């Protein structure tokens, strides 16, 4: 809680409320901090259940992680025999580094790298077919695979541009990522930023003509004493009210297009 992380220059908007504090998904045992989003402990309505379902679907990444790490490096399977904590820490860090080295080589072939593009394709199909109803109607469900296939064939469909853009950035290829700036609803700002990173390679949003100026946080960047900064950051992070408000906003946001968002994780 020193205020240096997470970065505050990536404002995002949920249900009209713009925030600068990015967050992590956690499970229910974590404290109510403003940069955590936990599932509702006792979901009492359908929209809370939907939100919990999606939150758990996304959080399963890290739940998988420990299984993958343990299965790949069986050193975690047995009780550690190390004599002190530093050597334990070193071992884990080494294993994690090895895991990341493999991920770097293999991530382009992962299922997760294509799922986003498919979901975007399904979004397009749904807008055409079922106009974004709350329940996933039969027509949307049947149109979705076709739309996904069409997006995969065309390769530069509306929302698929996001995935392609960041694939380019990932490989360090300064290609025409800006050309693939997406027309999809939520991803417009970030997509433009990705394109800028691919073509300019410089300092993101500020360097791009035509990109929206990040105005929301400009006032807070005045130089303050280190101690005050830490104090302010601590207060900001421990805001339980903000924790609840963020979760409620996200809940509303998820409900609006829950059929599209949950589709990759159902069935």
């Amino acid at each position, binding site marked *: 809680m020193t205020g240096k992380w997470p970065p505050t220059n990536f404002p995002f908007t949920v249900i009209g409320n713009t925030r600068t504090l990015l967050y*992590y998904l956690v499970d229910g045992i974590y404290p109510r901090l403003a940069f955590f989003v936990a599932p509702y402990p006792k979901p009492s309505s359908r929209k809370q259940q939907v939100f919990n379902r999606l939150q758990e679907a*996304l959080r399963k990444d890290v739940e*998988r992680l420990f299984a993958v790490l343990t299965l790949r*490096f069986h*050193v975690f399977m047995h009780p550690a*025999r190390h004599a002190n904590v530093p050597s334990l820490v070193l071992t884990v860090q080494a294993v994690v580094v*090895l895991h990341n080295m*493999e991920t770097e080589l293999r991530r382009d072939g992962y299922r997760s790298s294509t799922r986003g593009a498919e979901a975007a394709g399904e979004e397009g199909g749904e807008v055409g077919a079922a106009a974004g109803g709350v329940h996933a109607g039969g027509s949307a469900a049947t149109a979705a695979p076709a739309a996904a296939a069409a997006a995969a064939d065309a390769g530069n469909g509306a929302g698929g541009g996001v995935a392609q853009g960041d694939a380019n950035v990932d490989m360090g290829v300064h290609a025409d990522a800006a050309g693939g700036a997406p027309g999809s609803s939520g991803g417009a700002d970030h997509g433009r930023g*990705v394109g800028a990173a691919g073509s300019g390679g410089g300092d993101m949003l500020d360097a791009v003509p035509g990109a929206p100026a990040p105005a929301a946080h400009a006032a807070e960047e005045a130089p303050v004493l280190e101690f005050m900064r830490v104090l302010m950051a601590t207060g900001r992070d421990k805001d339980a009210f903000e924790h609840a408000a963020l979760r409620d906003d996200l809940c509303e946001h998820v409900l609006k297009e829950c059929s599209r968002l949950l589709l990759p994780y159902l069935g």
Partner: protein
Amino acid sequence: MGLHCILRDYFGVDGLPPVYSTDQFERRSRVPRAVFLRIFNALKDRPFWKQRINATGQLQAHPLRKVVGAFRVLAYGECPDRGDEYVRLSRTTFDKATKLLVEYVADELRPAYLRPPNQNEVERILARNVLRGMPGCLGSLDCSHWEWAGCPKGRAGTFQDGNGKRVIVLEAICDEDLWIYHVFFRGHLGV
């Protein structure tokens, strides 16, 4: 002997093709061959790893044996004596090789492979999570327990979990590709 086994099985020796394929090599060493070779090439000329001649004039272990042995300890969770059957190294050499491999990987490769996401990566994560329905999400955080058999008696209370076992709690933050951005430890009770 140990060197011959490794070369015969995974690299090919005397003009013969290797016994096991690259897939099998990766399945057994648990890392892609490129990663293995990169680490091997970085280590092979270092003081402990390079092949020495001892006081009686005999050649000591080849670096490949030590690297393979150390990887086996990490990959299979073996005790340091177990891989002796294959790579023919003594227990102490195994132990030292594992320790030095871990230190090398953790100290020298960590700045590149275990760090907070930079600006480009944050943008990429956010763009992906917008598509997944969570704008502003930086990843997921969770913890896992690792039992610690070697915990000193005097500190048993610090590391005790709800079941009376000594564990340390490993917390990690990762993204959708399971790329780990941060990992840290705590005792069971401290949050």
